[in-house]
């Protein structure tokens, strides 16, 4: 029966289906899946569009060793339309590249290298341009200038979503009263509110993680907020490096062996990887039971598997730290102090480690006590390569690591598989030549065991400092209580002695004074712990309020 029915169909169905099958351009794909790039709702879209531009500006300035001056302006054009203008003092972009960089997805300089930067994929800014085009139909307006003696180039760009290529709507040379820099103007559909996960919070956290940047922000209410530069020096430029052998997976190894110019396995290992010298390479070969003279191109899958195993068995030096640019304990703490008026701060920068051949480094900061709420989940601030991560907190390796840490040992409350509860803020920064995000919108760090382990180690280091503080505070509290109790009765001793010995008023005062002194001598000095609102001079109340839900926003 069945056979006959199928026979009635004259053509195999696959042939018919084949007529509809064609290549999908990346641009087309993302225009349909814009949530993957962080444009899933109007509020978030505003943040994402600005974030992509600012990230690029910061990257460009750092690479050119220029102290960043970034201006962000958001203009409310009514009907849920906003004009976003981001301008920097970066090196500018050569004329030829402008259309590709801004109006072509997956075009960029950062994807193919091993270097810490904010942008990685070459998607971000062109996705913003595409989003503007999709929601308002307006072109992106780009101005860029590469030096005082060069002309400024102005472009109006569209993306051809079918071909993923730029369409130049207008191009001209303009006067720009600036030595060098880039300016982008986008009209997008969005909505603005100042609460958490807003552009305000993003810029504030960016200021914390990038203390050498000067950011001037004009919000849609036309209020200007300045995040002033705290450090007059750029961080050391992170070096571009080769991959570190430990953690390189089979597939990647196969690819590398195929494309290497090295003639032998020995030279492949020393040339393509960091921290592998002739000695280490020899040991790897021994451990893998392979000849150092093996030709990379001739290696079978089994041999490559042996090689990966051999690498695992070999002790290889940690990757160099100069490829990573951590915020640093000092600046992490200063950022925290500005944002949170707490009574105790602790920071930790872990030594660099490796996941899948990529060096990375974890930093953690904790701010405890002060006016932070006692009975709520702790606040988590996440950074990846100095970029604040505002969304997808629960999907992030940072969150998982915090949950897997036993905070009760450090004086906070914690229910099973939950964030701890207590007056505490935890900042985690991951710096890496390649941050593994769970999606293209770069909101959550993927759960690599090596990363989770490092984050947990850093949390534990800070946690131990916190625990010793909490313990000290408890001890001092108990001692203060005892001392206060004893002091309560000193006047009674004075009074009784006065009556018993007919002492004069001065004598009684002396007795009481001496008793306080004796008590002090007997019990020792009390260390000052606890919250002093005025102690933290770096705290900036106006700054702290930014990007938090105030009462006015809640009414909106």
């Amino acid at each position: 029966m069945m056979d006959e029915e199928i026979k009635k169909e004259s053509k195999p169905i696959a042939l018919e289906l084949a007529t509809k099958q064609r290549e999908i351009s990346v641009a087309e794909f993302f225009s349909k899946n814009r949530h993957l790039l962080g444009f899933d709702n109007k509020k978030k879209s505003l943040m994402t569009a600005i974030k992509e531009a600012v990230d690029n500006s910061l990257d460009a300035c750092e690479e050119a060793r220029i102290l960043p001056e970034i201006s962000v302006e958001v203009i409310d054009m009514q009907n849920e339309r906003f004009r976003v203008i981001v301008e920097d003092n970066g090196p500018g972009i050569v004329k030829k590249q402008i259309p590709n960089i801004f109006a072509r997805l997956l075009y960029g300089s950062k994807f193919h290298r091993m270097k810490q930067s904010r942008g990685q994929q070459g998607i971000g800014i062109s996705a913003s341009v595409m989003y503007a085009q999709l929601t308002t139909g307006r072109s992106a307006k780009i101005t860029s200038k590469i030096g005082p003696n060069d002309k400024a180039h102005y472009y109006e760009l569209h993306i051809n979503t079918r071909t993923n290529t730029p369409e130049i709507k207008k191009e001209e040379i303009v006067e720009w009263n600036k030595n060098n820099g880039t300016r982008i103007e986008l009209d997008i559909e969005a909505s603005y509110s100042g609460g958490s996960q807003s552009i305000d919070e993003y810029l504030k956290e960016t200021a914390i993680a990038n203390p050498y940047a000067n950011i001037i922000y004009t919000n849609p209410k036309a209020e200007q907020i300045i995040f002033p530069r705290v450090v007059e020096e750029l961080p050391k430029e992170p070096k571009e490096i080769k991959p570190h052998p430990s953690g390189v997976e089979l597939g990647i190894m196969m690819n590398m062996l195929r494309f290497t110019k090295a003639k032998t396995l020995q030279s492949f290992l020393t040339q393509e990887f960091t921290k592998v010298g002739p000695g280490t390479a020899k040991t790897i070969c021994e451990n893998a039971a392979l000849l150092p003279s093996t030709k990379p191109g001739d290696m079978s899958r089994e041999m490559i598997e042996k090689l990966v195993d051999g690498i695992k068995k070999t002790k290889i030096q940690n990757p160099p730290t100069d490829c990573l640019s951590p915020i640093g304990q000092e600046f992490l703490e200063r950022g925290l102090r500005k944002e949170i008026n707490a009574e105790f701060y602790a920071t930790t920068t872990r030594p660099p480690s490796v996941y899948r051949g990529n060096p990375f480094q974890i930093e953690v900061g904790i701010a405890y006590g002060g006016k932070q709420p006692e009975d709520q989940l702790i606040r988590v601030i996440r950074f990846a390569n100095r970029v604040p991560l505002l969304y997808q907190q629960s999907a992030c390796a940072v969150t998982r690591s915090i949950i897997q840490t036993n905070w009760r040992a450090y004086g906070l409350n914690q229910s099973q598989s939950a964030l701890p509860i207590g007056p505490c803020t935890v900042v985690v920064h991951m710096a890496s030549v390649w941050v593994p995000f769970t999606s293209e919108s770069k909101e959550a760090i993927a759960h690599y065991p090596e990363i989770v382990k490092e984050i947990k180690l850093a949390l534990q280091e800070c946690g131990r400092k916190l625990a010793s503080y909490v313990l000290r505070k408890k001890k001092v509290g108990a001692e203060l209580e005892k001392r206060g109790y004893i002091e309560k009765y000193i006047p009674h001793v004075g009074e009784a002695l006065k009556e018993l010995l007919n002492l004069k008023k001065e004598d009684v005062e002396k007795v009481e004074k001496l008793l306080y002194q004796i008590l002090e001598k007997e019990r020792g000095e009390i260390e000052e712990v606890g919250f002093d609102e005025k102690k933290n001079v770096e705290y900036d109340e106006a700054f702290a309020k930014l990007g938090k839900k105030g009462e006015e926003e809640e009414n909106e």
Partner: protein
Amino acid sequence: MSNVVNQIKGIAEDVYRKILRKKKPQLTSPLRNLSNVKYGKEGYFELLGRKKTRTLTASTIKSFAQTLRMMVLSKEVVSGNDMATKREAYYVSKNWGEARFKEQAESDAVMDDIEAMLEVNREQLGFIPEEKGGEIAGKLIVIDKDRETGKKIRIDCTKFGSGAYSIPISVEELKFETNADFILAIETAGMFQRLVKHNYWKKSNCILISMGGVPTRACRRFIRRLSETKKIPVYAFTDGDPYGFGNIYRTLKVGSGNAAHINKYFCVPNAKFIGITPDDIENYKLPSHPLKEVDFKKIKDLIKNDPFIKQHKEWENALKKLYQMKVRAEQQALAKHGLNYVISHYLPEKLKNPKSWLP
């Protein structure tokens, strides 16, 4: 009198000097409990050397201040030739703000500590208890003084009819005239009443004393002085239970751990226990009540920790026997055999037979 005031001043000066020398001031007094007494040939609980110290620590500062303030009160009362009851002293402390006593038990304890520290008794400090000292009926004339004139007053304890003479708080100045054969110290007022009612003292030529539970210091001192000056034996008659043995009789005879500093004068080492013994419960087939958990505990504690009981095998055996019998009997259980059985049979039989007594 002024001796106590001087002693108090001496202690205060010591504290003051220490403070001026920037040294931690201290008040030291003997530990007042059974662990700090011994029972030996002196025949009473003697104080041993263990001390407690109050000073500028969280656990002792309050009582340190309270002790000093209580000494102020004592000095005022004694200098003014006045006195304060223990309860009054407690109320005076309500004026001391943070240093006030929450319960009278606390002020009583501080008072006892001062006594022990100065090795004097409460009355010398100007403090008196409010509880009755005990009641007397029988062949005794107490010679007291008129408060106003100072003239001698002769109080004939046979002439109180159905009432009784009350032992005053201070018995040190009293003198006695008597030709009684013995003193009978009785636990309950009920039994005392029965014996008075039927003129038992006349028949037996004795002095009856109602202790009303654990004898007060005044009662103990009164019996002691009376029996010593007039050389009269003392017999104790209590309920047949651990409390009667271990608290009432033991305190009468050798004093208490709590008042160890004054036991020397405030006990009656020559007293003998005539009943009710565990043997009596059996021999007289007395109606009984089952022992409660606290009674069993009390017996174990007496055997293990009380230096007096530990010294006397007879008492240990009696207590063990009671423990096994699992019962107790009251004095008034003798009424089972008739209301006057105690007079007609029990007391005469017991008094005649010293072997039935306990030491």
